Each structure stands twice: as C-alpha cells, then as structure tokens.
C-alpha cells in the first residue's frame, strides 16, 4: 500500500494525546477564591501515580479513530504493477557526443564530462545500442554502434567505458555543427544497416556532453533536415569560476609594419567573467607586467613591445583559467625578392613606368622587393626598347609603350614581324572582358573587387593575338582589342636556353599616366603582387598558426625536422596539435589556440533550437518529468480505489462506539459517586 499524501500520516502521532489525557488526573475548571497566593506555588497537572491506564477500551477506540483519520487523510492506494513501468519493444540507439575541445580543459569539466558519459552508458538497457563520438574541430568516432553490437552483451558497457578512457581534451577548437551531423550520420547508417524492426519505431538519441561555449561553430546545421524520432539531449557542463580572459595577436599578417614595430595584442574577456583586471608579460622578460582593464564581454587592444628574441611567449595573468593565457609568437624573417626591369628610364621620372613600379613594391616587414637588372630574377619587366635576346627569366612582362615593341615580341618568341598599330579611334578605352579564372586575375574574381571600369586607358596598341601561336588573351578592351596576352615559351624556343620554360605577358598599354590610370588605381599594387605570385616567387612564410591548421608545404616538405618547444622531434602531422613554439629545421614557428575557443561563456540552448536541433529534455528534466508522471499515476489509482472513504466510515463507527461507551462509563461513575 502506498500513500498519496504521506505527510498526513504524521497525524497518527496525535494518538499520544488520548493516552496522555488518560494518564492525567481529571482536572476541573473550578475556581477557588483564596485570600492570598503568597504562600503558594503553581503545581503542574499531575499524572496519576499509578502507571495504569483507566478505561483501556475507550482509549483504544479513541486511538483507533485518530489512526484511521490520519491514514484516511494520507489517501492510501494499492499499487498495481503498471504497464508503463516495464519497458517494451526494442531498445533505443544512443550516440554519446563528447566535447574534447580545448575549453574542456577548464576546471573540472573533463571529469564531469566523463562522469556524465559513464552515467549514460550505465543507464542503458540490454536492448539499447550505443556509440561514442569525440569531437573538437572535427568529429572522431571512438566507438561505432557496429562494434557495440558485435560485442557480447555483458561486455558492451565495459567496452564503451574503456573507449571513453582513451579520450582526453585536445587543444583544438569546437565545431559543434559538424559533430552533430556526424552523430546523425552514425545513427542513420545504423538504421540502414541494422536488422529491420518492422513493428516499432526505434528511438534514437544523441547525448551531447559539452560546455556549450559561445565559441562553438554551428555552421552546417542551418537548413539541415533532422530525421524524425531523433532527439538531442544536451548535458551542459558548468564551471564554478567562469572568469576567463584570452590574448590574441592582431595583424599577425600585417605586411606593411616595420620589423621592430610594437605588437598589437587583443585582450578578450569572457561575458560571464567576474574579473576585470589583468596583467600581461613576456615570459622570461624582466620588464614590469603591463596592466589592463577589460570589462566582461569586451575586448581591449594593447600596443605591446616586441619580445627580446625573434620568438617569445606572452602570458596573461589574473583570470581563473589558464588554458588560453599564453600567446606564442614567432617573428617572420624578411624575404629578399629581386625583380628585373629593363629599360632606359630615370628612376625619378614620373612619366615613366619604372617610377610607379618601384613604388608599387613597398618595403614591408616580411618582404623587400629590389628592382634590378639581373637577368636571373624570376620576374622581369621590359619596356619596349630593351634588348630581349639575353632574357631567360621565367616570367617576362612586356609593357608596350609604343607599337614598335612588337619587334621585341618577335625576337622573344622567335616569330616573324608582327603587325601592330596605335589605336586612335576612341578617346579612351576600358577593360571589358577579363578572364578571372586565370591565376593573375583570380584575386579579383570576387564581385567586390572585379570592377575595373574606373581605369581609363588613354592609349593602347592594337596587336592581333591570332598572330601569336598559343597566345591566350587574359583581358580585352571594350572595343575588343587584347589588353593582356599570355604566351607560354617552351624550353629552347626563341632565345630561351634548353630546359627552362617561361611565359611572356604582353600588356598592350602602359601604367604610366601618358597611357592609362592603371598605376593610380587601387588594382595596380594587387596586380603586381599577383604577378609576383604568378611568377612562382616564394611568398614570405607566415609563421603564426592556429592549432589544427595545416602547415604550408614549405615547412611540411619532409626535409625539415619539426621539433617542439622542448626540442623533441615530432611527426609532421602532429605539429600543430598543441600550442607552443616549434622549430622546422632552424625556422621557429608559433602555434596558438584558436581565437573562438576563448569564448567560454555558455551559449543558450535556444540557439541550437533556432537552428532546428530537436532538443530533448536533459537527464535532470527527465527525472523530474518521470516523477511527475508517477505522481499522476498514483493520483489516478487513488482516485479509482477511494480507500479513504472506508477509512473515514470506520473512524465514524469507532467514534459512535466511543461515544456510547463513554456515556455508559460516565453514567456508571455518577451512579457510584455520592
């Protein structure tokens, strides 16, 4: 028997009262007037000296009435084995998705996560099937559902827990979107490959164990159609001390800054942070730390003097979490690039192309372009009059300042004299048809940058591209004349020595003011750099990487041995698994934590719901709803049985008996008393 309101059973304690009343000597409410109470002390009601109860039957009746009332009010009901209590049908399929990103290194998040995952596995029944996926910036299948199914039933749980033990938080970012999709895939595949279950729909569930940080990437979820019958249960983990600040290097890719310029550091404070004062210092430097004030949810820029050595480690002091408090920095050495220019021009003549070319290649912290007349330079520019016979440069750009430059083309390509004339029919021309698929123009392919119509070409030379075999027109003027022609030069062709291929780019106009506005336009410098890149000149190496970023081929070429900050040699594919300063050969490079990972404030689950994720109740909410359901069932059972009526009836019967008996006792007492 169970009770709907068991608190009322406490009312049964009231049976103490009749027992006490039976023990206490009968007192009266009579008053006695007395002259003075000065010699009297109050005497408490006295319990009968004989520890024997009078009128046992009366007492028992009274106690019984009270007990029946108490039990009746507690609303008893008889428990029947309910049908809902026993699980029916096939088990559910569960994918446990455990966040192993760097933010899980905070406080005790990882032990919490393991505990929750263990709880999930422990709660599974023998018919249930489960898999385990760990994810950071990419999902990793730790335990496939197939493996679970293959394992013997008693060993399945141990297998899952053993696989769980192999997981640990990495230093990578969080890509929650791809992880959820991977989990859906894992469930769906099982649905296809699994044994058919014709009768009942199998429940499928993804248990997401994560800190649900704001820095989680959710791309991929938008518009995804979630399969029916699948729910995502979010077990959001929480930290007790949420204060977290991070530092990031800003403009690490800035190419205009001088080599010794100050570093711009961004200090970001998490929105749920409780602290606002932080200190920054170079690790190992003797300078006093720089103090900064960053309110929660905001960021501050700091100008920071560079490290003493070429690479260093900047540390942030003052928040609760250490995992993102270090910024590694490796200085990039300046690359020397030679570009040849052949032409009889004075350097300071503003009417000539050389003047603009020199200014187009600005000195930066990372590369220095020298304009020389070295024939071995990978890129060379020729203005019309140069002697082209000696040129062996891989990429030659011919700037046709006049129609006479056609002779140079003939010489370079070993062709007969080409016909070329000055175009004079229009006041000016614009670039009309540009081949944005070509590497040279690829940077401009985006519609934001593809507008070349603001550049007026006052003069150009009309050269028919048909005359040149293998010529490809990369850009044309609006009236159809080629503006830029590319001609590949095979080894041994023309003046070129055997074994060295190259290409010739013919610009039928010039960038100097007499010919066009090109040098003054915003396209000029990008075009020059595009040319540099196209001439396969090695770009200056960028030596700041994020964890998980693929290293460029220059570092990852297999020849350089990569060592971590302790000097231990590691495999190339592991090179960016953890933040720190690495060395590829003698070249140091820095690997830092992804910027998003420092956004540790928890995200609202609503954000997931808005993206269409079918969020189910968390384990706590499930417990509550189960308890509510049980309560409802109990109320229903009690309502059907209505045992309280019988109890109240019984109490009334006893009460009648008591009244009758008490009346008789009183009558007898008054008859015997004088």
């Amino acid at each position: 028997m169970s009770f709907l309101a068991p608190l009322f059973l406490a009312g049964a304690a009231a049976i103490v009262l009749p027992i006490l009343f039976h023990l206490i000597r009968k007192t009266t409410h009579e008053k006695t007037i007395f002259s003075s109470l000065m010699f009297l002390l109050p005497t408490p009601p006295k319990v009968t000296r004989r520890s024997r109860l009078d009128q046992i039957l009366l007492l028992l009746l009274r106690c019984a009435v009270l007990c029946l009332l108490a039990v009746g009010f507690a609303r008893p009901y008889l428990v029947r084995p309910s049908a809902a209590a026993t699980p029916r049908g096939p088990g559910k399929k569960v994918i446990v998705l455990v966040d192993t990103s760097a933010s899980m290194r905070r406080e005790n998040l990882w032990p919490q996560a393991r505990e929750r995952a263990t709880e999930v596995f422990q709660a599974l029944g023998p018919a249930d099937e489960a898999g385990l996926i760990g994810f950071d910036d990419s999902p990793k299948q730790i335990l496939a559902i197939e493996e679970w199914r293959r394992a013997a039933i008693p060993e399945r749980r141990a297998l899952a827990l053993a696989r769980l033990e192999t997981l640990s938080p990495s230093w990578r970012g969080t890509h929650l979107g791809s992880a959820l999709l991977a989990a859906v895939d894992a469930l769906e595949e099982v649905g296809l490959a699994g044994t058919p279950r014709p009768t009942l729909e199998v429940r499928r569930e993804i248990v997401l164990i994560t800190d649900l940080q704001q820095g989680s990437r959710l791309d991929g979820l938008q518009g995804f159609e979630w399969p029916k019958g699948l729910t995502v249960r979010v077990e959001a983990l929480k930290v007790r001390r949420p204060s977290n600040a991070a530092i990031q290097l800003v403009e690490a890719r800035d190419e205009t800054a001088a080599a010794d310029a100050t570093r711009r550091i961004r200090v970001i404070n998490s929105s749920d942070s409780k602290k606002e004062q932080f200190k920054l210092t170079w690790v190992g430097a003797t300078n006093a730390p720089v103090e900064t004030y960053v309110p929660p949810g905001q960021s501050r820029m700091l100008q920071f003097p560079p490290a003493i050595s070429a690479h260093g480690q900047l540390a942030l002091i003052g928040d609760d979490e250490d995992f993102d408090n270090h910024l590694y920095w490796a200085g990039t050495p300046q690359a020397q690039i030679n570009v040849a220019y052949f032409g009889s021009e004075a350097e300071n003549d503003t009417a000539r192309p050389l003047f603009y070319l020199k200014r187009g290649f600005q000195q930066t912290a990372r590369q220095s372009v020298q304009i020389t007349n070295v024939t071995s330079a990978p890129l060379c520019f020729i203005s019309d009059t140069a002697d082209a016979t000696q040129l062996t440069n891989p990429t030659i750009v011919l700037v046709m300042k006049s129609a006479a430059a056609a002779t140079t083309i003939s010489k370079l390509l070993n062709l007969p004299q080409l016909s070329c004339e000055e175009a004079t029919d229009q006041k000016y021309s614009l670039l009309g048809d540009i081949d944005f698929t070509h590497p040279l123009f690829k940077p401009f392919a985006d519609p934001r940058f593809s507008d070349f119509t603001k550049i007026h070409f006052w003069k150009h030379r009309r050269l028919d591209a048909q005359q040149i075999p293998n010529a490809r027109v990369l850009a044309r003027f609006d009236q159809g004349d080629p503006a830029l022609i590319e001609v590949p030069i095979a080894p041994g062709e023309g003046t070129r020595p055997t074994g060295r291929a190259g290409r010739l780019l013919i610009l039928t106009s010039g960038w100097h003011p007499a010919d066009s506005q090109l040098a003054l336009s915003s396209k000029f410098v990008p075009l020059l750099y595009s040319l540099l890149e196209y001439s396969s000149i090695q770009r200056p190496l960028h030596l700041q990487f994020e964890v998980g970023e693929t290293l460029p081929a220059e570092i990852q070429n297999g020849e350089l041995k990569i060592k971590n900050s302790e000097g231990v040699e590691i495999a190339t594919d592991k090179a960016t698994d953890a933040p720190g300063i690495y060395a590829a050969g003698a070249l140091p490079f820095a690997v830092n934590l992804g910027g998003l990972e420092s956004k540790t404030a928890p995200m609202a689950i609503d954000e997931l719901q808005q993206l269409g994720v079918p969020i189910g109740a968390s384990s706590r909410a499930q417990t509550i709803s189960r308890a509510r359901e049980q309560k409802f069932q109990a109320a229903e059972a009690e309502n059907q049985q209505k045992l309280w009526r019988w109890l109240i009836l019984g109490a009334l019967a006893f009460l009648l008996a008591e009244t009758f008996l008490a009346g008789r006792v009183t009558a007898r007492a008054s008859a015997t008393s004088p």
Partner: protein
Amino acid sequence: MAIKNLELRARIVVEGFWKGIHRSPYHGFSVEFSEYRQYTPGDDPRYLDWRLYARSDRYYIKKFEDETNLRCFLLVDNSRSMTYGSLAWTKAQYAHTLAATLAYFLNRQGDAVGLLTFDEIIREYLPARNRPGHLRQLMLLLEKPAAGAGTDINAALNRIVDVVRRRGLVVLISDLLTPLESLEKNLRALAASGHDIILFRVLDPSELKFTFDKASLFEDVESRRGLYIDPEAARRDYLKRFDAHNAAVQTIADKIGASYSQLGTERPLETALFDFLRARMERRKRSRRSGAIVTRGE
C-alpha cells in the same frame, strides 16, 4: 457574629467578659501609684507628698500612672484579603467586631479610642477621643465594607507616627498577609515614639491549615491572579512557608517588644479580649519593674 449590630455585639462580648473578670486574679484598674521622685524646682507643688515630707523632711513628688488618659489607636486592616472567610463570617467581620469590642471596652473605662482603617491607602481616620457619641461614630466607620485591593500596613503605621504625638496604645488588627520587609522598621519607629503595640493577626482556619482537597484554580482575592493548585501537592509547602512567615512576625514582635497574638476566626472573641488584657497587664508589670529599678538607682 449572628448579631448584626456591631456595637451590640461588642457590648455583649465585653459584658460577658466583665462577668468572668470578677473571678480573675487580675483586678483593679484605678488611679494607681507609680513612683516617687525627688522634687525639682518647676514641678507642680500640688503633687508633693506632704506626709513623706513630714516623715523624712525631704520633698518628694508622688507620681501616678497616666491611666485614665490612655489613648488607644485601633489600626484595622480593611483590605480585600480580609473579606475572605471559610466560616459563616469573614475575617473582616471578625476584625471589626474585635475592634469594636476593644473600643467599647476602653470607652467604658473612660479611655480615648481612635480608629484608622487602611488597605493599600489609608481609608478612614478618627482621632482618639472620649466624648459622648464618639464610640457611635467609630462603630459606623467600622461597619464600612472592605474595598481595597492591596494591603499597605506601612502607610498606616507611618501615619500614626506622624499624627499621634502623645504616647499611647496602638492595636494593629490585620491578617498580615503582606511581605514583611519594612514592617519591622515601621513598628520600631512606632515603639520608639513610646507607643505600646499590640498585634492581632486575624486568620481564617483554612488559611491556618490549608484545608482544601480539590485541585482547582486558586484566585487571589486581592490581585485576581489565578494559579492552578493541587492542594495535596501544595499543602506541605504552603504550611512550611506560612509557618516561616508567622515566625517572622513573631520575631519582629519580640524584637520591638510588642505583644502578638494570632486569632483564628473560629475562636471566641472573649479570648481575644483576654489576650489583650493580659498583654496590657504584662506590659504594666514590666514597666513598673523597670520604674522601681530606676527609683532605686536614684
């Protein structure tokens, strides 16, 4: 107490007593010789004992007791606690009869009798006189019912000290159911003024024995305070504390040389009167004895 008239009641008591007193060994309340004292200039020559002068050729003053000029003050407690009585009469009725009896008795002797009734304040005051009609006035005052909620004997005693300059007799009739802290001090002040003090403590038999048997709510007649009392359990403690209080009163009376008698209201009033007279006699003897010593010393 069946006789309603207080004066009549008093007369009956006194006359009954007169009859008995003839057989009493104590007799004679006439003008009585007290002592001889040597004459000093300024003494009234009327009191010179010429016979003694004839015999001894010395001037002596023959002193008489100031008997007829006795001033007696009856201090009657009229508080509400006096209205209690388990018999057919209350303590107050008994006390009033006693006071009336004494007044009547003294009046018949020609003494001046005064009255002061009190509860928590002084209610009535009648100076000591021996005029015709005075006794009647006194009886009327005594017949006023008790009203006061408390008892303040000290106020009454202080008033007597203040008002009565001449030596006299002070009879205090009360149940003395009050704390005794300052009673001794005030009585001592009264005794120091030369007054003779007689204490009559009027108590109901149930107060003396605590003869209750049913547990009930006991209500104080003065303060109306209630206490749940089981007499069986409380009796022993009550009697103990009551006896201690009584002993304290006795001690005080002994200290100041007052005579003290405790009167249960069941006792006949004659015995009370007898106690009064005996006290007077003892007093007289004592003072006479001390006077003789003084004389011899001179």
